[in-house]
């Protein structure tokens, strides 16, 4: 019996130790996705301009161009697969350790067909950052298993796999992974994939408008500038959003009522050129650079005013 208790203790202790080693390695990453997550959820930052949103924000706004055109210090906290409410939760988690930015560029994903859902895309990526209370609360609200992921090492390890192990080792040895070098201050281009789109109704739920109200109010309280952006979708895909026109109109009204600027690029010429898109809703590197330049110049003009 004594032997069994000792073994159980060793196994449990080893579980925690191994998990901490892996998390330690991931937190040591100075390149790529984990460097970005470290910045958002752990580090203390003081960026002047912050880009919020989903993968569209992550891929469409190149911080190198924004910094050079606007002479600002920006960071892109757009996260793949995040819904509009989750993007704002990520922003709140960012604020747990960092200063409130002066400018917030919020790319609204109006094209998605559900404003929020209970699943978190690639959820093991968040495991090393569950000490960030705001993030943990946001994740646990969506997926109850996060309690187990935080406190039971073998439960979380089972969902991670060797990709995380190799990323942790890369972190310890300062070696960038295959796609890590594509990241610059949180922004990264998207590679071309096969296209597919069909008619559908996009998200038109109260939660989307409520969240826009709430972030506008928070920005006002912190004396920060909020810019709502509808970055380009491929025009033929936009045409498939059956309630697209009325939705954009509602968003514009929402911007006016909150007294914030909304920049809509869905009628821009960029939307017509399929060569600039990796898929119907994501521009490729070339398209993203053209868009970021255009957007930065527009924003500079607004700032000048």
């Amino acid at each position, binding site marked *: *019996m004594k*032997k*069994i208790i000792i*073994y159980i203790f*060793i*196994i449990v202790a*080893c*579980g925690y130790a*191994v998990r901490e080693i*892996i998390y330690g390695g991931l937190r040591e990453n100075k390149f790529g996705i984990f460097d970005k997550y470290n910045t958002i959820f752990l580090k203390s930052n003081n960026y002047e301009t912050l880009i919020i949103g989903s993968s569209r924000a992550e891929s469409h706004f190149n911080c190198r161009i924004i910094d050079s055109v606007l002479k600002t210090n920006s960071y892109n906290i757009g996260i793949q697969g995040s819904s509009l409410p989750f993007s704002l939760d990520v922003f709140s988690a960012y604020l747990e350790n960092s200063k409130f930015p002066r400018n917030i560029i919020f790319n609204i994903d109006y094209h998605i067909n559900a404003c929020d859902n209970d699943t978190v895309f690639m959820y093991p990526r968040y495991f090393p950052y569950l000490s960030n209370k705001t993030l943990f609360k946001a994740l646990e609200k969506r997926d109850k298993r996060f309690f187990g992921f935080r406190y039971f090492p*073998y439960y979380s*390890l*089972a*969902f*991670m*796999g*060797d*990709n995380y*192990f*190799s990323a942790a080792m890369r972190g310890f040895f300062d070696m960038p992974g*295959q796609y890590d070098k594509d990241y610059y201050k949180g922004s990264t281009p998207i590679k071309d994939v096969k296209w597919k789109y069909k008619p559908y109704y996009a998200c038109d739920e109260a939660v989307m408008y409520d969240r826009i109200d709430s972030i506008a109010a928070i920005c006002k309280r912190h004396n920060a500038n909020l810019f709502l952006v509808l970055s380009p979708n491929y025009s033929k895909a936009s045409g498939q959003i059956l309630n697209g026109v009325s939705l954009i109109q509602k968003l514009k009204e929402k911007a006016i009522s909150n007294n914030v600027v909304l920049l809509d690029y869905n009628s821009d010429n960029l939307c017509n050129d399929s060569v600039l898109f990796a898929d119907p809703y994501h521009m490729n590197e070339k398209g993203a650079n053209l868009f970021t330049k255009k957007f930065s110049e527009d924003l500079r003009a607004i700032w000048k005013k």
Partner: protein
Amino acid sequence: MLFNSFPFFIFLPIAFIFYWLLNDKYRWILLLAASYYFYSGWGLWYVMLLASTTIIDYFIALQIEKAVSKQKKKLFLIISLSCNLLVLLGFKYFTFLFNSGAFLMQHFDNNEVHYLAQIVIPVGLSFYTFQSIAYSIDVYRGEVIPEKNIARFALFVSFFPQLVAGPVERFNNLMPQLKKRTNFVFEMLFPAIRIAVWGFFKKMVIADRLAEMVDPIFKNIHLYSGSTLLFAGFLFAVQVYCDFSGYTDIATGVAKLFGIQLSLNWRRPLLSSSLIEFWKRNHISITSWFRNYLYIPLGGNKVSYGRWLFNIFLVFLISGLWHGASWTFVLWGAMHGVLYCIELVFNKKFPNLKWRFGLGHVYLLLFHTVSIIAFRAASSVDLFVIYHKIISSFNIGLLGKEVFSLSDTFSILFSLGMILFLFMKELQEETSFIRIPTVIFSNYFRPAFYICLFISIFLFGNFNSNQFIYFRF
């Protein structure tokens, strides 16, 4: 319910705790209920089928015992065999036979024919029907006294650790253990957990990772060179071994938790140096089943030399068909049958000839690799395409490029490293080339080794796999 599924990790501790808490008179009842509950995870129809064949075999076995004349005994045995084989035929072979017939018809008169879609084979059907057949034959031969309690007999057929993928247990080995009243001692936990952990490691860390490399190659055979296809065959051979022997190890470990010792099913077959040796080490329970219930009734070695070789070939052919209802499996059986006979003839002609410098091991691995591709090929046509490519477009230069395009470098190197680790572990078991003092070994080295394995399962194991290869057999 799969061994590597979350429900099983809830089910097992509950069954284990209640089993040992219960009065030893009633433990077997709990084990029976647990076994049927375990099997019901695949569907109630499957449970009904299992229960039906159990009831039939139970009553027929009693009739065999009661029958006075040999002819009557034989008649009841034939009824039992027919029932079991009909179930196997209906679920496993009907579609194969129908479609083969339809294919022939199409060639004789050019009319369009309709092929049947494969019926879902009840999980473990081949295993428990073979166990029941063995029981009926043993009763007929007078080697066992039939069980009088139907529920106990049902437990023999359905004992959950070995129900769905063996080992196929003999009545004389399993039933006395199921009846024996034992007390729980903590020391019995350690070997049980050790063997189960090693089984989980083989299944989840080696087999399932190799599957991620093997599957894309065999799904797109036209994209790969012959050298890569042959290499994929080797990986598949290791995958099948780790998948199936991993299952057996888990089953053995789980059975040990209930004080039951299952029979040895695998004895490091990939370290064999000839096909004859391979079949003494590989899937031992089913090999001995074929020897006892097919090869010996055919006359064994007490027939003419030519007939003896033919019997062996026939046994391998049927064994191939047992593995799967497809011509590729028949071909696999034929390949093994032919080579086994060649080895026998060779050994007779040159009794003192010995393979040197590991050549026997290389020969066996190469043959096993080539033949097991028949297990994995989607169809006979695919199989011939693969063999043709291995001969005609064997380009070793393309191997590295094609293999490393499958996944990231770390993942591939790790999987290949795991094969080396498996080889070293098996070699150590076989030859004890590393000698560690017993006290250090049992107090420190062995616990540390298995704790590392346990952690590795969580670190590198594939928790998304939902199949064991041998379930389909």
